[in-house]
């Protein structure tokens, strides 16, 4: 039986949901549906915004929005926040360590080859000190809940986690449509996120920067599926949205090409993968990228956020060692637990996984977006057998976890409020200080019983409230 976040098993409404429940009862299901249609119309109007920009004019796809907010109490958030900060700090300490002396590996806490032979590890980064020793400036941590007190980390995202625009837009729509809900000031605002992000990015200006740092957001271009978010964030921060062809490197500095001639750039919030950053340093066949960008970075002429190679910290094979990192670097016990994970790469893990595949969730180490994943209890015998063959062919490429009883959140159904599984992605900013806006992205599986919340597979999003008291 999954934990329902709105209601205790005895039917009592949990305190933090009192306001939401009152509003649901007041509005009625029919009223909610009417408002939902309105919300959808607004989304369609600002619309474009959430569309997936598919070339070839695919019908614009909106990520479904569910009207009912997900609520955390002040106390719940405090604990989450501590856990998130702790994790973001440890992940950055780990990144500094593996690109320098590798103490945690020397101490035998993590197998060396798991790091040094990992495709996500970038030898080019060895021995380099990024400004403030920060590698991952925006850490997105995917969290699931399995009980009133039980929060567990599903995975970390240290490269360029996306989805923060939903957090901001969902709140914006809710505030616009239901000003009364927010009038009492019960809900902590999240709209200072862009300002905090800009502050964070400016704090990691490179040594060569003089004066107020010039920050730009580097996007692969308008064909990228997250382009909306890129332009949205650039607009809210009041910074230039640039593509690789807008930049060039000279004299160890990065310049943007403007109508008034070249202008210096100090910090690049890049939403482009390592491989495509610089054809002279990484993939030579890449047509994207700014030649010499990495040289300027190592020369202290520009800061890249996140640092190339930050992906080693969110690798699924490294994930299991994060609690170890927290103990090693911070001398603390992890506040947020990991989900027990079997590595198919070791013989013991492999044997267990193959024997219990029908009960487990198995994933590819380098997969993402919910693809290439097997949910044992929902799979047919043939699917399980086929997946077992894939694991046997390349055990190191797979991990498995128990099927969790994810908590459910109230969701607007056809005729009633229904329970649907959800997860949560808060965004922790890391500069000179760590900053966290009270909220994040709640993704919800809109199909009954489904555990897959990815928007590419029928997931939706909803507003997330953190109460003031």
């Amino acid at each position: 039986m999954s934990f329902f976040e709105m209601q205790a098993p005895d039917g009592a409404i949990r305190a933090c949901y009192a306001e939401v429940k009152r509003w649901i009862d007041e509005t009625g299901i029919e009223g909610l549906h009417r408002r939902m249609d309105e919300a959808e119309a607004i989304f369609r109007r600002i619309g474009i915004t959430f569309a997936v920009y598919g070339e070839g004019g695919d019908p614009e796809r909106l990520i479904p929005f569910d009207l009912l907010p997900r609520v955390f109490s002040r106390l719940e958030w405090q604990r989450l926040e501590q856990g998130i900060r702790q994790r973001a700090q440890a992940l950055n300490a780990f990144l500094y360590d593996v690109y320098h002396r590798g103490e945690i590996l020397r101490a035998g806490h993590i197998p060396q080859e798991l790091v040094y032979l990992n495709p996500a590890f970038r030898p080019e980064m060895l021995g380099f000190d990024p400004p403030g020793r920060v590698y991952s400036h925006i850490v997105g941590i995917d969290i699931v809940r399995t009980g009133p007190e039980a929060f567990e980390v599903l995975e970390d995202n240290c490269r360029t986690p996306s989805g923060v625009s939903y957090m901001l837009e969902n709140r914006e729509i809710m505030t616009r449509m239901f000003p009364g809900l927010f009038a009492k000031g019960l809900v902590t605002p999240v709209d200072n996120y862009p300002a905090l992000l800009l502050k964070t990015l400016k704090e990691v200006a490179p040594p060569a920067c003089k004066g107020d740092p010039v920050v730009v957001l580097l996007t692969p271009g308008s064909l990228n599926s997250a382009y909306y978010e890129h332009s949205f964030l650039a607009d809210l921060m009041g910074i230039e949205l640039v593509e690789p062809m807008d930049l060039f490197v000279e004299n160890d500095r990065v310049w943007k090409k403007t109508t008034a001639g070249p202008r210096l750039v100090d910090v690049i919030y890049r939403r482009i993968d390592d491989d495509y950053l610089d054809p002279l340093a990484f993939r030579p066949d890449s047509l994207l990228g700014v030649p010499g960008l990495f040289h300027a970075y190592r020369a202290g002429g520009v800061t890249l956020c996140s640092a190339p190679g930050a992906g080693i910290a969110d690798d699924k094979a490294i994930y299991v060692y994060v609690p170890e990192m927290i103990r090693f670097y911070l001398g603390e016990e992890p506040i947020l637990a990991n989900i027990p994970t079997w590595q198919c790469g070791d013989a013991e893990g492999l044997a267990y996984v193959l024997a219990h595949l029908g009960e487990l969730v198995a994933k590819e180490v380098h997969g993402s977006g919910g693809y290439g994943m097997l949910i044992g209890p929902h799979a047919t015998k043939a699917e399980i057998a086929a997946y077992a063959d894939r694991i046997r062919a390349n055990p190191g490429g797979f991990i498995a976890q128990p099927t969790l009883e994810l908590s459910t959140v109230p969701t607007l159904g056809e005729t009633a409020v229904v329970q649907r599984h959800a997860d949560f992605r808060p965004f922790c900013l890391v500069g000179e200080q760590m900053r966290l806006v009270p909220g994040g992205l709640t993704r919800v599986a809109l199909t009954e019983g489904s555990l897959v919340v990815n928007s590419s597979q029928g997931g939706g999003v909803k507003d997330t409230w953190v109460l003031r008291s």
Partner: protein
Amino acid sequence: MLSRTAANLFWMARYLERAESTARLITMGQRMAVLPGSAYRDEWRSVLRVTGCESFHTGGGPVTEEDVVRILLLDPDNPASIQSCLVRARANGRSVRTKLTQEMWEALNLSWRRFEGYDVGQARAELPTLIDWVKTRACVFRGAAETGMMRHAGHDFMRIGGAIERAQMTLRLLDVKYYVLLPETDVVGGGRDHYQWTSVLHALSGSRAYHHVYGGVHTPANISDFLMINRTFPRSVAYCVDQMRSHLERLAMEHGTLATCHKTVDEIFELLLNGQDGAIFQRGLHESVQLCLKLTNRLADEIADSYYF
């Protein structure tokens, strides 16, 4: 502002303007084609010539409406077809999506693939509707920009792109049709030339305006004057040059410096100023038109150079 943004806005406006001009030309071709003796004159060919697409007509013989619809409206491989222009205008617009207003973007984005499914027969059957649709898109876009777009440098680049394209369309039309406007055709007189002239005016949506300025008499001198020198008719070369000058001036202020393109636009301006009161005829209409075409091409190149496109 980023050079790429300036270039995208400049080209977005040019392509949209080009789509609209081409639509107007097709309307002119239709009018001409129903006149007596049209087959013998191969009127549709001049439409292809104005758009620089004559080479797309292979196989000899006179050019038909079917050919023109295929080449100028639908052909995705012809960079000058309305279909290509709309696709390119949208592609340029999408790259600078955040610099456009919602309404501008919608005008570009709405049914930009409209012509993809059409075959020639179907397009011919619906031709007036389709042509109107293209013109309306361009009008909606301009209107949205007029009331909604911030007047930053991007707006200037966009307007300059549109003005250059519009001036060039008028010039190319004059370049192909100049012979009907030569003084000696006066003596020929009669219906045919009258129709030729009015069609030229019609292609530029200038028939009524012409009457307001010059009364009911069509003379080559007046028509040339109207299309080249008149500073109140928005499709005249002179009006477009005024627009270019004013927006280039704003850019100069904003960037704190004059560039070669400012000299060139002044040169074109002088040329037209000196062509007043029939002087452009005395110097040779055709030569003047060709010189203006050359200078506007140079101007476009120089703008790209001056602002690092």
